[in-house]
């Protein structure tokens, strides 16, 4: 009896073992919570969101580092002003490319590649659009990192490559260009194709024509990096882009950007928390002196209204001879050392005035500096009212400036002046639209006449030698990159074409734009180097 019992248990154990090992193995190891039959066109939205929902980047990289580096803003001396190079939380886009952005993009491709051959062609535009996203993101990651894993990256699931090799920038740029060219061919092919529906493509609502234009514009932008390294290749790509049936952006309506609902970019890391929100002095002086219509769209006035001035004056803060200066756009000197200069000392910090009012001592704090329009970046700022957030990715204005540059250099035969003026106008209109949607402080649409007047300013008008023209184009690229501060760091330091500008000081009423020549080589496009050796130096 007893031994029979034991035998019974033994047999039972054996049976369990046998079934566990063979019959239900696949079923046991299949996660019921993961769909295995997802449709490729449903995977794009997550990647798109990850490309624009980047508050961590804004706080740690753009506010604290890039915008200061580009001298759009300056760290507020009395506030949270960590050193510009002290913050380690930069380059988060690198991580994101290989996870939240890139994975779905390659998954779209994998799913389509697994379809029967006759089905695949029908899904080719779905794959092509995913590719444009992938190239754009990798291009930005390579801007910062130089060589990155790309061709073998994100293949762990398909090819079991656990240690993807790095590609040099030469390989990367060839791959980017080939992939964009392939994508453009797919997007301009004739036939019947699957598309992203309007709600799953937050950029273009599934409009294949616009994706074709964006791919072409991106191809052009990437080719510009080869201007010095491989001018023949750059020219060849430009020629292909100009002849492409996909065409380029024809107006701001075509440009690649993200416009949020009212429930986005509010507080948290979207909020710069005062760390670097004061406008740079050179930039504000330049914009003020050239009467740039974008000035009130970029920056807020300081707190020195005439009423405040009069109150302080009557309270004894200023001598009786003091005269009100109606200019309320005041930037902060970029160099922290300038706080020691007597003419700037008063600009550092919120000014505190002890005045006497009705026989009582009162302390009044008045900020002497202009902050950027917080609501362009954080809808939770300045009252947390309704509004929509815009993130430009590849703009019509930028494309105009690229074409203007090519025209000045004789690579394309178009009217450079017309392109430049279209670009400036488009940039003003684009920032007007952004500020309007975001409901920035004291928002008012710039009049067309103001744009015309701006274009007639000596420092802005498209006149001068080719070098001056290229510099004026460069200045406009710089101004237009206010909401994409990652855009210019590499262009300005890598391109001998784009010389950089030091904005003239405020005292001058007729600003002369002086040329800044780069003192050292920056992380220029180099096919052999694996990593940039140093960040480009600051304009001084």
């Amino acid at each position, binding site marked *: 009896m007893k031994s029979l019992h034991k035998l019974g248990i033994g047999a039972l154990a054996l049976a369990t073992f046998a079934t566990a090992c063979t019959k239900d193995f696949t079923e046991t190891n299949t996660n019921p919570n993961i769909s295995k039959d997802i449709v490729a066109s449903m995977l794009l939205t997550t990647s798109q969101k990850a490309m624009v929902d980047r508050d961590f980047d804004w706080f740690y990289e753009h506010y604290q580092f890039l915008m200061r580096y580009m001298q759009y803003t300056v760290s507020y001396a009395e506030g949270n002003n960590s050193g510009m190079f002290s913050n380690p939380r930069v380059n988060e886009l690198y*991580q994101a490319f290989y996870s939240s952005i890139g994975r779905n993009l390659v998954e779209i491709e994998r799913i389509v590649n697994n379809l029967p051959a006759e089905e695949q062609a029908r899904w080719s535009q779905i794959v092509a659009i995913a590719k444009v996203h992938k190239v754009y993101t990798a291009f930005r990651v390579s801007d910062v990192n130089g060589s*990155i894993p790309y061709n073998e*990256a*994100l*293949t*762990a*699931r398909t090819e079991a490559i656990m240690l*993807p090799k790095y590609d040099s920038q030469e390989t990367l740029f060839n791959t980017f260009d080939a992939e964009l060219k392939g994508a453009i061919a797919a997007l301009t092919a004739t036939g019947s194709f699957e598309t992203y529906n309007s709600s799953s493509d937050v950029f273009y609502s599934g409009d294949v024509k616009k994706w074709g234009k964006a791919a072409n514009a991106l191809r052009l932008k990437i080719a510009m990096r080869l201007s010095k390294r491989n001018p023949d290749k750059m020219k060849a790509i430009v020629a292909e882009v100009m002849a492409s049936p996909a065409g380029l952006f024809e107006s701001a309506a075509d440009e690649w950007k993200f416009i949020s609902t009212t429930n986005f970019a509010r507080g948290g890391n979207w909020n710069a928390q005062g760390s670097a929100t004061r406008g740079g002095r050179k930039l504000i002086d330049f914009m003020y002196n050239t009467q740039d219509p974008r000035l009130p769209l970029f920056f807020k006035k300081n707190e020195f209204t005439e009423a405040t001035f009069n109150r302080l004056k009557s309270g004894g803060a200023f001598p009786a001879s003091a005269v009100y200066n109606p200019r309320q756009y005041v930037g902060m000197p970029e160099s922290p050392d300038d706080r020691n200069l007597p003419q700037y000392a008063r600009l550092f910090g919120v000014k505190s005035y002890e005045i006497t009012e009705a026989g009582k001592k009162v302390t009044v704090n008045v900020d002497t500096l202009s902050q950027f329009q917080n609501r362009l970046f954080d809808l939770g700022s300045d009252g947390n009212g309704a509004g929509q957030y815009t993130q430009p990715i590849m703009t019509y204005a930028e494309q105009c400036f690229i074409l203007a540059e090519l025209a000045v250099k004789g690579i394309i035969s178009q009217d450079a002046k017309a392109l430049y003026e279209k670009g400036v106008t488009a940039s003003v209109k684009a920032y007007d639209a952004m500020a309007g949607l975001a409901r920035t402080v004291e928002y008012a649409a710039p009049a067309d006449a103001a744009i015309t007047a701006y274009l007639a300013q000596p420092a802005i008008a498209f006149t001068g030698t080719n070098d001056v023209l290229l510099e004026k184009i460069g200045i406009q690229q710089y101004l237009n990159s206010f909401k994409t501060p990652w855009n210019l760091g590499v262009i300005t330091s890598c391109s001998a074409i784009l010389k950089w500008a030091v904005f003239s000081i405020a005292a001058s009423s007729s600003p002369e734009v002086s040329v800044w020549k780069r003192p050292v080589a920056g992380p220029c496009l180099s096919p052999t180097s694996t990593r940039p050796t140093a960040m480009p130096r600051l304009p001084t």
Partner: protein
Amino acid sequence: MATSWEVGADVRFFNNRLGLDVAWYHTNVKDQILELAVAKESGVERRFINAGKMQNKGIEVAINARPVDNKNFQWDVTLNGSRNTNKIVDLYPGVSEYILGNDQDVNVVAQVGSAYGVITTPYGYTPYYNASNKGNNGMPVISPNTSDVRYKFKRGNAVVGNITPDFNLGLSNNFSYKNWSFGFLVQAKIGGDIFSASHQYGTGRGTVASTIEGRDAEHGGLAWTDAQGRSRNDGMIPKGVFEDGYKVKVNGADVDLGGMTYQQAYDKGYVTPLSPYEYYSMVGDWGIGIREASVFDASYVSLREVSIGYTMPNKFAERLKLNKVRVMLVGRNLAYLYNKLPDHINPESIRNNATSAFSEYGGTPFVRNMAATIQLGF
């Protein structure tokens, strides 16, 4: 998958009154399921693989004896002991360390060449080293901190222990005299380290009894004057060396304290003592504390069980129409006869029951069980 061989002997003497059971084993475990980190650039962050080779060698001994066996009195004693040595032979090509668990930035890892369960932390002490410095090398480095807690120990990577015990021992005794029985079980674990978060943060917050030291003159506090000009008698001197290049201003001139112990700097009048808050924060604060300071050998000897029983006389049972009536009192987990941990921290209050469990962080108090039982035989 495990392959194992074992040699054992079970020998008995004196008509079974003395028994010796010895087993010596050797087990190789291989192809465990390991979750390995993968370069993120590949598109995945982790993968599960079958890998690893671990060796267990050990001996188990049990001695059973009945030293006294009279009509009215018996004494049974069992002593058992085991010792297991363990070695991670191999993990996976290119992987020499595998993190099994983490608690408060203390890791327990499998390290090739070491026994299973090495405790490491990035928040250990950094030993001072300077080739020209004689005497103070090896002492913890002290660096400046904030005005709130003026100094901190410099944190560094350190291997701070291993969870595998040297021995496990058990001793059980049972006596019976006529109708009475009495027994006790003593169990011991010798060796094997744990990390005690209770000690770490209890030290940082000053809530464990061992932080009484230095709080007043009676407990060794030094007389000093703090930055606010208050005279105090709770000055403390941390054991450590100032990092190289650390300078303080003394009467307007820079004095280089690098390589000097805190005590030496204090003796020369360059620094004032620390308050107990500063002193204990340096050891156990969440932000700057040294986790290494709270890794201990968790050896203990536990009085696991004591029982006393009485069997009622047969006449009494018959009156109740029963075969047998027995009353027994049992107490479990009565006391630690020896506990190497400070501040009465319970060495068995481990956070979980994983093989790699290694940390203690409060937890429910250990319960001393008392039970009275009545056995009725029908």
